[in-house]
């Protein structure tokens, strides 16, 4: 606990200094890092502990982005972000009431379906009602304001994760992840806990969306409801270790750096390495990067040695008469 806070504040202090010395490109890269760090830590907060795999992150992100873009002309920066998060959380409550009794693949597919539904409903509304497809943001805050807000959100996401892990709410979510029915018979109001957890995740995604909308200055449904944002959040959390506190954060940094460097030159290579890393992690490191220890390498070495010995044994038999 104390150690976690210490790590968090030293990382935050370091990130705080970035805009002062780094290049424009580095700041933009750091912003992406922070964005995915926030998204995947808050995703893990609910989905990692309850094992409800939600693919709706891009829906909440998009809702937040749209809300932020529309509201920023009328209200202040921070209020717009808070409202973006609140509206996303409200949508999550409705969505959660509808689909959180489903488990596993059904839940994942339905959250993805609802994301598409929201995406297309907004596209339709834009075309029919307002007669436009995208929006140009006229009021845009300074680069440093955007960066610092995102940093604050990332710190908040980790702080909330630390607090929730130590609370009854966190215990209830862990119980749901381990054996939902057993948790119910021990007195957990699982429906309430699930909807609240889902809404908490959505609030962060919505707030992140509201912050990111000003980065793009022009937004349309296809950009902000891009399912890739949702998928990448899930991949980062799984590769990093969704059940851990720091895993999603480490993976967010690794992935964002990979993404920014590779995507520009060789986009296919980025997607390929993403897929490969996921497969390797699921097969050989189910606890994610955060579960990696020095012993893990030892175990792998032993595995390879055993495999090599097995491979050679039949050959030795052949030599013997």
């Amino acid at each position, binding site marked *: 606990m104390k150690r976690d806070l210490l790590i968090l504040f030293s990382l935050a202090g370091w990130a705080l200094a970035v805009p002062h010395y780094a290049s424009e490109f580095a700041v933009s890269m750091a912003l992406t890092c922070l964005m995915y760090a926030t998204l995947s830590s808050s995703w893990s907060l609910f989905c990692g502990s309850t094992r409800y795999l939600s693919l709706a992150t891009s829906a909440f992100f998009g809702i937040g982005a749209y809300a932020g873009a529309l509201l920023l002309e009328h209200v202040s920066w921070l209020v717009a972000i808070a409202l973006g998060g609140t509206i996303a959380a409200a949508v999550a409550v409705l969505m959660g009431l509808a689909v959180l009794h489903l488990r596993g693949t059904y839940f994942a597919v339905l959250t993805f379906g609802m994301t598409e539904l929201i995406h297309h409903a907004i596209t339709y509304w834009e075309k029919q009602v307002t007669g436009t497809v995208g929006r140009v943001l006229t009021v845009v805050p300074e680069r440093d304001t955007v960066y610092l807000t995102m940093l604050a959100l990332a710190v908040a996401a980790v702080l909330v994760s630390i607090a929730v892990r130590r609370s009854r709410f966190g215990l209830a979510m862990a*119980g749901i992840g*381990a*054996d939902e*029915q057993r*948790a119910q*018979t*021990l*007195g957990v109001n699982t429906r309430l806990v699930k909807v609240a957890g889902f809404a908490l995740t959505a609030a962060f995604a919505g707030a992140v969306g509201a912050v990111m909308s000003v980065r793009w200055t022009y937004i349309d449904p296809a950009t902000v409801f891009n399912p890739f944002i949702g998928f990448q959040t899930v991949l980062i959390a799984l590769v990093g270790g969704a059940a851990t506190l720091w895993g999603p954060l480490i993976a967010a940094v690794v992935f964002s750096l990979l993404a920014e460097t590779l995507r520009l030159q060789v986009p296919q290579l980025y997607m390929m390495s993403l897929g490969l890393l996921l497969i390797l992690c699921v097969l050989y490191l189910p606890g994610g990067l955060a579960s990696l220890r020095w012993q893990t390498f030892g175990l792998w070495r032993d595995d390879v040695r055993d495999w090599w010995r097995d491979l050679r044994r039949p050959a030795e038999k052949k030599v013997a008469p």
Partner: protein
Amino acid sequence: MNGHALLEAREVSVRFGGLTAVDDVSAAFAPGELVGIIGPNGAGKTTFFNALSGVIAPTSGELFALGRRLTGAAPHRYAQQGIARTFQTPRVFASLSVQANVDFGLQFAGRNRQASWLLKDTASILNLIGLTAQAALPAGAITPSQQRLLEIGMALATRPKLLLLDEVAAGLAESEVEAMAQLIRRLRDELDLTVIWIEHAVTTLMRHVERVIVLHQGRKIADGSPAEVVRNAEVVEAYLGDEMTEAA
């Protein structure tokens, strides 16, 4: 029994598609009773338990706890009303420690309920079920018979008035079965719990309970003291005949 029964099932039926697993069963349980439920495989014992603990909502019929209607409520509401259960195959949280497993119930259903000093905290519950030495081990690492005890400890942590035990003695060695029966009697006597105990091994059960309910093909065919039940012609016919007379 004055006023309301602790738990009452009125004409409860549970159907799965065309199959009627529990058929129009009524039963009332008074405070401090030790009741056994027996029946051949597929008689609907576990399904009846699932209905009594809210895990399955009955297709028809009503459930009341101390006069309060509970039909269709979520399982956590049953737990809050003081109805606790164990599962036939132990469903402990394998990655948590034994201690944390017990603590779970105390954090939720047992949190605001008054309790006997025997259920004061995690340590006293562990002491009661005899797992103090295993407290720090992960629940997945203890033996299956210890896991059965832990199941009971988890249920006790909700500080119940009524405890539903689903085949807690199945697969235990002779001496362990006797110890389990002693523990169950002790829970009833010292905690004043109502205990409803399903067991496949009729002989063990008959020795310890004061009242037996016999289920057969989902229906209740007998309800009375062990001595009465074994003389019931329908029970003898439906059930296993010899084993029954042996038990009496």
